[in-house]
């Protein structure tokens, strides 16, 4: 009895659990201390949480692209962060042109719609092209090959955009109707943040509904299960994969527009960090799972926004926001220790089994 118990627990397990417990201890101890010190009032915590949710919304829309491509192809499309960048970076020129001739201010809703359409079109077209040129020829190659290609494609796109549009900053003009706040109860919330959170939620639901309820979605799930058999059943696998990339690209383009509502400056390197975070979020939620990507992104956003103040401030650590990525990723490791397949990851394997 004792022997089997001993055999089942390796030293690695013990180390992992010690790490896990110490992380948990720091989190709990730091939070209690911070709340005891009481430097921040409820209002600040609410503001931080909303900031985190809005950030999570942007991550979520990028994460959806990672996750559906992974779900169907079992491949991580690292160039996705550049697909995210391409939309708003192209659309900024339309926005600036509209702003110059006054249309932006006289018809702000139509302008935003036009800019969004352009961004979504560019991102989605680019994703489809990328799949056709860079990934399809390698579909039967070992799994590492398309991964390396994706990294190459990512650099190619970054520097192509730098070459075309320069390395400077481009700023979007402001939208009058999204300035200021809406008040919920007694809490004023910035309109842009509300728009971002709600759009991300709606986009996630649409995508989830599409995958679960439509015929196309059923075909996508079939391809994800087994490409060859799906092909034998009369599903056009190439078309379904193209559709997957188009959907992922479109959600990245929309994410790009939400991103510029929050941070109205574009730059050729802007995709890199959000892309990395979104990928992390997708893994956290259970890669391949649409609601998981959304949940993971929201958790990551909140951790980044609230974490440094909550965990570190009370312990008297100076400049905690320098460590926000460290905190977010340590918590991520912690969650993955407990649930190696991500928060919602297991459910998928169960349904598949």
């Amino acid at each position, binding site marked *: 009895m004792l022997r089997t118990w001993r055999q089942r627990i390796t030293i690695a397990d013990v180390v992992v659990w010690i790490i896990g417990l110490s992380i948990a201890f720091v989190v709990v101890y730091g939070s209690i201390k911070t709340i005891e010190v009481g430097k921040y009032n409820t209002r600040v915590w609410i503001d931080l949480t909303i900031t985190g949710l809005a950030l999570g919304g942007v991550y979520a829309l990028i994460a959806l692209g990672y996750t559906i491509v992974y779900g169907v192809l079992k491949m991580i499309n690292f160039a996705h962060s550049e697909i995210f960048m391409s939309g708003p970076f192209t659309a900024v020129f339309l926005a600036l042109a509209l702003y110059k001739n006054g249309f932006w201010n006289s018809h702000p809703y139509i302008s935003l719609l036009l800019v969004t359409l352009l961004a979504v079109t560019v991102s989605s077209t680019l994703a489809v092209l990328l799949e056709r040129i860079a990934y399809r020829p390698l579909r039967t190659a070992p799994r590492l090959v398309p991964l390396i290609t994706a990294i190459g494609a990512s650099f190619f796109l970054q520097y192509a955009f730098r070459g075309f549009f320069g390395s400077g*900053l481009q*700023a979007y003009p402001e939208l009058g109707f999204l300035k200021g706040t809406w008040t919920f109860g007694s809490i004023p919330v910035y309109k842009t943040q509300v728009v971002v959170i709600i759009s991300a939620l709606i986009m996630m639901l649409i995508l989830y509904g599409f995958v679960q309820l439509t015929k196309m979605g059923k075909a996508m799930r079939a391809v994800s299960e087994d490409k060859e058999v799906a092909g034998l059943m009369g599903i056009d696998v190439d078309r379904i994969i193209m559709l997957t990339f188009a959907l992922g690209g479109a959600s990245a383009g929309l994410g790009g527009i939400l991103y510029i509502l929050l941070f109205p400056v574009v730059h050729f*390197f802007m995709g890199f960090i*959000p892309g990395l975070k979104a990928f992390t979020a997708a893994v956290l939620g259970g890669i391949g799972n649409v609601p998981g990507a959304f949940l993971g992104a929201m958790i990551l956003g909140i951790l980044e*926004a609230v974490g440094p103040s909550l965990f570190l401030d009370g312990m008297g650590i100076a400049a905690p926001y320098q460590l926000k990525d460290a905190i977010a990723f340590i918590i991520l490791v912690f969650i993955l220790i407990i649930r190696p397949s991500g928060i919602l990851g297991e459910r998928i394997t169960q349904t598949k089994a």
Partner: protein
Amino acid sequence: MSKRLLFVFAALIIATMVLSACGPKASTYECTDAIGCVTVAPGDPIHLAYDMVINGPDATLGIDSRNGVEIAIAEKGQLLGHDVQLTGEDDGCSAEGGQASGTKLAADTTIVAVFGTSCSSAARVAVPLLSQAGFVIISASNTAPDLTKAGDPNNWPGYLRTAHNDTIQGAAAAQFAVDFLKVTKAATIHDGSLYAESLANQFAKVFQELGGTITAQEAVDPNQTDFKSVLTSLAPGGPELIYYPIFVKAGSLITRQAKETTGLENTSLMGADGMFSPDVTAGAGDAVEGLFVSSPDTSSFSQKYNDYFLPKYQELFGSEPVSIFHAHAYDATWMVMNAIEAVAVKDADGTLHIPRQALRDAMYATKDFQGLTGVLTCGPTGDCANPKIAVYEYHAGEYPPIKVWP
């Protein structure tokens, strides 16, 4: 057979050694300099180099300085009968960029002097490499105090600067906050770069000495775009001023996001010379209104700045100066060219010999140099600036910002 071969090789090697030893004797000049000489053959150009940030979001800083160097070289024309050639590398405004560019430049032994770096973080890594290669290094925009602090491991021989030292800029910013803004509570944010961190610390030190309170000292990652959470965490301290002496990209985003943070709507915002750029106006949009930046006081510059330099800049580069260290770079270039003229030895056939240590000594001995940025005298650790710091205020849609203090 093999012995014979060995003999032939030995003979060849001896012959080579004898010949090469004869080489310098053929010329009338013998290099006795402690760290070597640069020889410029007749018709060859004198090679100067720059190590500045010329790509990426902070590019205006480096390009502007390089323009200053080019104006000085163009104005000089020929130096001791030789053309002046300017090449360069990108310091990336980062330690990694400094490493790469410094290594590359240090390998080129034809270089006499290097103008750079643009950023103090790059200097920390690049300056040791360039100093060991025997070059004169003179920066127009590195402002971190330790680079010219006597006895500091970051103070390297051959390194000088025409930029002001940040102990002065940080102190001026604190003075401005107390005298002009009349604030008593301030917070600082830096981005982990040497430049920003030393400025923020100097500001905090002097501000407290003047009776103010520092509510928080934060740090951010300059590649992030979300600064809302860090700003929100600053708000409960109730700072009346946030001082963030960082660079253009993060600086303009913080400017914009601070205006949208609950509790900071009426807080004054202030940056330093790294945010004196048209990109800030573009990046921050309307939020730029009322943003203060400290910077060298161009109104204290010599008459020649307005009469000759600015029109020349417009003529050569088709715009107003895009950043603030062009005049410092111009002065640095003239100082280097004057020092070369003072120490170089010219053979009858026009071959030029520039002893490296003598050139460094001549640079350090610069006294009462009439530059655009003032009358410059170099100290033994390489501080050559005669700094006058002013504070400028941005207004939405306008560039450049308007001087408000002193």
